[in-house]
């Protein structure tokens, strides 16, 4: 079994939070579809990896879940962002921006600009 890196796990959690933030309550498949659409193939092989992340976020109090009816009236479990989740999202977005900015700057550095 290949261990997922923390970055991937963290990225996935961030994507879940952002998706729920933008689209409101969604069931697991909806979240997976959405992430797939935006990120391309991150989840195309292992959609299932989403579920442990969702469970972990739920344990952390960032999301809450309830049974509900899907668009075609089937029973499905819907996840929604909690206030704690929103706060977590903000903090993580901030972190992420900072990190990417720094990394980007490093990657674009040319010898003559040093």
């Amino acid at each position, binding site marked *: *079994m290949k261990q997922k890196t923390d970055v991937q796990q963290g990225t996935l959690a961030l994507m879940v939070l952002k998706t729920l933030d933008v689209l409101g309550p969604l*069931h*697991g*498949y909806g979240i*997976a579809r959405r992430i797939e659409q935006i990120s391309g193939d991150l989840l*195309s*092989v*292992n*959609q*299932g*990896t989403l*579920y*442990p992340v969702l*469970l*972990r976020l*739920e*344990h*952390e*109090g*960032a999301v809450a879940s309830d049974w509900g009816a*899907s668009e075609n009236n*089937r*029973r*499905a*479990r819907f996840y929604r962002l909690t206030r*704690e989740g929103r706060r*977590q999202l903000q903090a993580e977005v901030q972190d992420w921006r900072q990190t990417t900015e720094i990394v980007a700057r490093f990657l674009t550095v040319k010898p003559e600009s040093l």
Partner: protein
Amino acid sequence: MRALNRLFARLRNFITNRRIDRRLQEEIEQHLNFQANENIRAGMAPEEARRQAVLKFGSVQTVREDCHSEEGLPLVEGVLQDLHYALRVLRNSSAFTLVAVVTLALGIGANTTVFSVVDAVLLRPLPYMHPERLVEAESFFDRNSSPSNLSYPDFFDWRAQNHSFEHLVSYHDNSYTLTGVGRAVYVGAQVVSWDLLPMLGLHPAIGRGFTPGEEKRGTRVVLLSHALWQSQFGADKTVLGQTIQLSGETFTVIGVMPANFRFPITAPKTDLWTTLAVDDTPTGDGITNRGMHYLNAMGRLKPGLTVEQADQEMKAITARLAKQYPDTNTTHNSARVESELDAVLGDTKTLIVVILCAVALVLLIACGNIANLLLARVSDRRREIAMRSALGASRVRIIRQLLIESLALSVVGGVTGCALAFLCTPMVLRLIGDSVPRAADAGVNLQVLGFGLTVTLISGLLFGVVPALKASKTDVVPTLKTGGVSNISGRDRMRSTVIVGQVALGIVLSAGAGLLISSFAKLMHQGLGFQPEHLLTFRFETPDYRYKTTREQFYREYFERLRALPGVQSASGTLVLPMSNDNADVTFENPEHPVPAGQRPSADISLISPGYFNTMLVPILKGRDFTDADAPDALQVMIINQAFAEKYFPGEDPIGKKLKPGAGGGRPGGPPMREVVGVVGNIRHSMTQRHERPGYFLPASQLPSWCCMASVVRTSVDPISLEPSVRQLVTSIDKDIPVTDVRTMPELMSLQLSQPRFAMVLLGAFAGLALLLTVVGLYGVMMYSVSRRTREIGVRLALGAQRATVLRMVLRDASLLLASGIVIGLVAWLGFASVLKTMLYGTAERDPLVLAAVCVVVAMTGLLAAWLPALRAAAVEPMQALRVD
């Protein structure tokens, strides 16, 4: 915060046992449906759509496992699962479990019990403030290093000249008769310097402590013990400032000590404390005579000073005093300062440590047995273990499983052991009696239970780790193929090593126990120089305020009436009662061999009344006993013992020789010259006395100022049955004289033997236990090896080997193990033997006879244990054995 939330959620799941598995399954099912529908809409056939959905989802099992490890506490759950499994395994092999638990319970119970004593005696700090700065100081003669007490002038010089101590306090015991409050009672007292309480850092429960001025001549103040305050004064607070009568003198009560106050630690029954002013009498020289050594000294070191620094300073001061006062201090020319706890414990520290080591060895042997049992079980369980690892259990997982089994075993044994300790501790305490200071405070408390638990876990790891490591190395394929039966000799070598180690430890313990038993037997059967049976002893005081001038007459009348009591054959008195830890040592001058005052020899002294030797049944070897004719004004006489005669009058007739013992009769002109009128046999003064000591006797009638004689009565009936009549007799003469310490002579002897007895019984019990465990272990190993070799033996028999040969072969294997163990054990004993030196009497610590006997006993019991397996091996039916497998 997030991590905390997560932990709480896990804990909640763990406690409520909530499982999201079903919910997850439903979610996954929905997920797959959504995806399949999507695929169908994209134009796939339904089966293909479903297949692609499943592919896209990835491993459902992995997701479930990931989710599972996210919920609850997987490590704890795993351990619990292992534990559950372990308990089932242990329950299923109940015979093994029973043997292991009983073995462990005995080992851990014994260790916990001993530790409860160690805790109270060695580990607890003294009940004073900053006890680590408290020290005991004593003087000694550097030529024979035997410690001695201090005289007041020496103590005052020490106190004035030292720079090491915040406080230096003298103390010695004393006794009084408390009258005027109910019936007269005998009270034990300590006479101390004023600053006892500041030195200890304690305060009275009520009232105040002593002031410096209360050391002054004529002051009479007391602090009462809580117990005396309650029993004699009804816990009445108005007792403060009141006066009480102690042996006819008036004392003012200034305070009551707290209930838990104890000083000295070794005299827990002290009833009151008073200042050294009581020794400063106008007529006596108790406080001014540099030659009267009867004080102990305890000090509190100044902060930052070490015991060694204080020791150096006191040595210097004492050497200076010896030069300054050669007449009195030549034989007290050095000093020793040691930590108070060490001083309190003395030799008993060795005893306790020896017992602790012994009991630890027992546990080690017990662990060896269980390790061997487990190793045997591992061999039998190889198939199960191979199966588990074939099913994917990692090596760590298998080790964990087996270790949890051992720990479960040890915890069950440990809990049983601690319960055993609860039962055994009071028994051990009864055995110890007063022979070990502070032991009476022992009990199974939290600390002791903590120790028990620690020992439990350590032993669980100790006996579990090797079998677990061995088992985890099981090769899967061959084991599964052969059905788990194959012989690996390495494992047997391990088991043999354990057995050899156990036998060696058993030898060490049995040697120690054997020597103590031999020593105790010699103590019990030593010649005492008198007949202890049918002797009753008791004490009472004849205080000066009543009997100063009439003491001689009082005793004469009293003994006459005592001898007239029915059941009394003879009766007499002695200042120093044998077997009661009393001792007095006084110098004497020999005019034929004059020496400077400071170098005069000294010998044991006792004052006796006529008929003492007759009562004790001590032979008078030469000359005569004292009689009533040896009156105060008659010829001054003395009687010496045989050891004295041999040492100071070798080859001469001592009768008629003149000596001047330094024992004054309180008359002007100092001690008189005395004539030796008799020589008597040596009397043992203590059960644990190592040599015959020179001693001499003076007639009490010629030194009537000396108080007080103990009574010895030889009876024709059961001695203790006379107790009421002797009490009544004394009360009828003077109702204010309480009779104390009514004991038979065998009882006194038994009390004196309590420390050797306790050492012998405990070490004997541990050695017995060790031997039993070793024998059981050896039996187990031999039995197992025989069952393993059934086939080989069958082949041998089939090829024509005699049954006797097989029997010999098994016994030879066992003998080899035993012999190796015995040799190693003996060598180890010879190395460690000297620790027992102070605990042995009349037996050398390497006594060859005892050691030989111990080896024979171990070898015989060991061979006996190997006999049954050997018989079984010899009884193997070749055809059956070959058909096995």
